[in-house]
């Protein structure tokens, strides 16, 4: 770490904003292309209706809601790393939190599209908002779907302002190195930041309170998302376990995506000295912890289904594991229940390639978890066994899903090229400050 000085940190991170390469444009182009696929699919859905996405009795919540929960879940680890670990004073979060936080904002932006696509008539979306209308009607505040709207809206707003707040001192650092139009742009967006004591004094306090507000918020958001299901009486949904189970799963999948994103960023931007193997090991430990909670929830869920003696509950879980969707359920059990156990080994935790591969499987597993909970519980609903039907995703589902990945990566790629993807000022905070005494001691040794 000897060569990692304040100046090294500023210059290394500012260098990531240099002229984009052809590889970058290729990636950005692919993301925009995927988004185009999504937009074309959406046009077809608008023209022919949601039946195109395989919506039919009894499965009216399918891949779109699965993707919604998946992307909201992805968002959670960002706030965990930026807010909860900030309150815990974990020094290692500084190198990775900006990427995680940007991921949060873009993942919520992606998640927010799915309820809109799912309602079918997007032009009526404002009916969700409590606005004075000519019929004097108001939303039903007893419905978890309205709670969800408030939770996601608040989460998007708060995580966005939290991201921007963290960016201000870093944009100022970039401004002071930049020239030309970039200096002007960063000069405006830095809001006059100079690092004066009067600014830090209010900034650090405010940041602390934002973190303190974001911490219960992040736990509430996925709890509210889980209540979209748990408040209904569908077997497989109706469980008090859902809130902690969903929160742990969300952080598990989010940490997975943080690893997936950080590995290429670190390699491409040459940030090996700033994002070290220790950081990846800590992320892997978070993955292990939350993955273990998820595994424990699977065991509890199945045990309670059996132990309750409730025939419908038992039938739902039997259908899940041995019904027509056995492949989805076992993908979920293996990727989320067994895979994290590999992380007990320090060799695996410190092997970046292994972590990268595991992180991708974590997210495949977590996508299938939502698919299993939502689609399989509805398809094999044991209260009306005569109405059961197997649902299969269609090309329209895959098209919209591909579009969502394109949308997410487009924003993320634009972000990493235009704003510091690693926090400049916070990475410096965990370095030893330059001191005269230390400098003299160092000179003696040299």
């Amino acid at each position, binding site marked *: 770490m000897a060569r990692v000085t304040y100046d090294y940190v500023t210059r290394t991170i500012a260098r990531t904003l240099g002229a984009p390469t052809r590889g970058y444009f290729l990636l950005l182009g692919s993301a925009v292309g995927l988004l185009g696929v999504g937009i074309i699919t959406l046009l077809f859905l608008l023209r022919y209706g949601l039946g195109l996405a395989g919506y039919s009795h009894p499965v009216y919540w399918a891949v779109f809601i699965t993707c919604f929960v998946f992307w909201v879940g992805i968002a959670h680890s960002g706030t965990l790393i930026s807010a909860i670990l900030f309150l815990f004073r974990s020094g290692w979060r500084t190198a990775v939190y900006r990427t995680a936080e940007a991921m949060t904002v873009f993942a919520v932006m992606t998640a927010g599209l799915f309820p809109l696509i799912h309602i079918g008539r997007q032009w009526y979306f404002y009916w969700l908002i409590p606005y004075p209308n000519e019929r*004097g009607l108001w939303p039903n*505040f007893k419905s978890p779907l309205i709670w969800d709207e408030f939770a996601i809206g608040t989460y998007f707003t*708060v995580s966005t302002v939290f991201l921007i707040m963290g960016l201000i001192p870093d944009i100022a650092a970039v401004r002071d190195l930049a020239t030309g139009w970039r200096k002007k742009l960063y000069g405006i967006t830095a809001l006059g930041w*100079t690092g*004066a004591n*009067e600014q830090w004094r209010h900034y650090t306090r405010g940041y602390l309170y934002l973190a303190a507000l974001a911490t219960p918020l992040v736990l509430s958001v996925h709890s509210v998302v889980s209540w979209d299901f748990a408040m209904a009486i569908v077997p497989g949904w109706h469980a008090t376990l859902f809130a902690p189970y969903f929160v742990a799963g969300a952080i598990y999948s989010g940490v997975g995506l943080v690893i997936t994103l950080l590995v290429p960023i670190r390699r491409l931007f040459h940030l090996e000295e700033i994002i070290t193997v220790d950081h990846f090991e800590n992320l892997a430990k978070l993955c292990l912890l939350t993955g273990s909670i998820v595994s424990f929830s699977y065991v509890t869920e199945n045990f309670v289904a059996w132990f309750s003696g409730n025939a419908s509950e038992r039938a739902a879980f039997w259908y899940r594991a041995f019904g027509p969707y056995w492949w989805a359920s076992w993908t979920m059990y293996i990727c989320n229940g067994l895979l994290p156990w590999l992380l007990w080994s320090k060799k695996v935790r410190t092997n970046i390639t292994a972590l990268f591969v595991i992180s991708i499987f974590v997210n495949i597993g977590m996508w299938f978890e939502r698919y299993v909970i939502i689609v399989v519980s509805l398809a094999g609903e044991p209260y009306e066994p005569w109405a059961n039907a197997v649902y299969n995703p269609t090309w329209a589902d895959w098209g919209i899903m591909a579009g969502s990945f394109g949308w997410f990566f487009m924003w993320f790629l634009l972000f990493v090229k235009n704003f510091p993807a690693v926090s400049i000022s*916070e990475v*410096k905070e965990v370095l030893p*400050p330059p001191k005269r005494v230390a400098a003299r001691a160092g000179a003696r040794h040299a």
Partner: protein
Amino acid sequence: MTTHFHVPLPKPLHDIFRPPPTPGVLGVFAHLDATLEAIKKLRAAGHADFTVYSPIPRHEIEDALGQPVSPVRMFTLIGGIAGCAIGAWLTLWMSYDWPIAVGGKPIGSVPPYVVIMFEMTVLFGALSTILGILFNAAFAARRLGTIQYDPRFTNDRFGVFVPAASDKAARVEAVLREAGAEEVRRG
């Protein structure tokens, strides 16, 4: 013969957006401990309204300056309480304004409304915290735009700016140099 009088016109907007620079002395420091020494010496010499620049927040600087706790916390508190109240009002008033019985529950049933009240608490608390920071750091600290600054202060240098009239500047310069400033500028 006409005499031309130069009458200075009042320029209120110009005064707000382009205030005249504050005269004073700027010291640039490479080391944190030297900066702390300068702060102590300046305070001992009776200076109170100087500005310290640093690339990162350091508790040592806060302690040396002996600043009071930021009033941002009051913004957070008031915003949070207001948000909670708005959440309660929104849900209860709207329920009774057009009563619809759902699931045999009371028209205004508080437990589900706690979710909305909680989310509104966080939303308003966070937004008013941002306003608090902006208000205090950007608007209340109006002098900040008028004093000397060096782009190295966001990178790896610390800085101390002491407002001083030209007759006092020499003494301040001496204090800053003595504390270990690597560069001292007058402006």
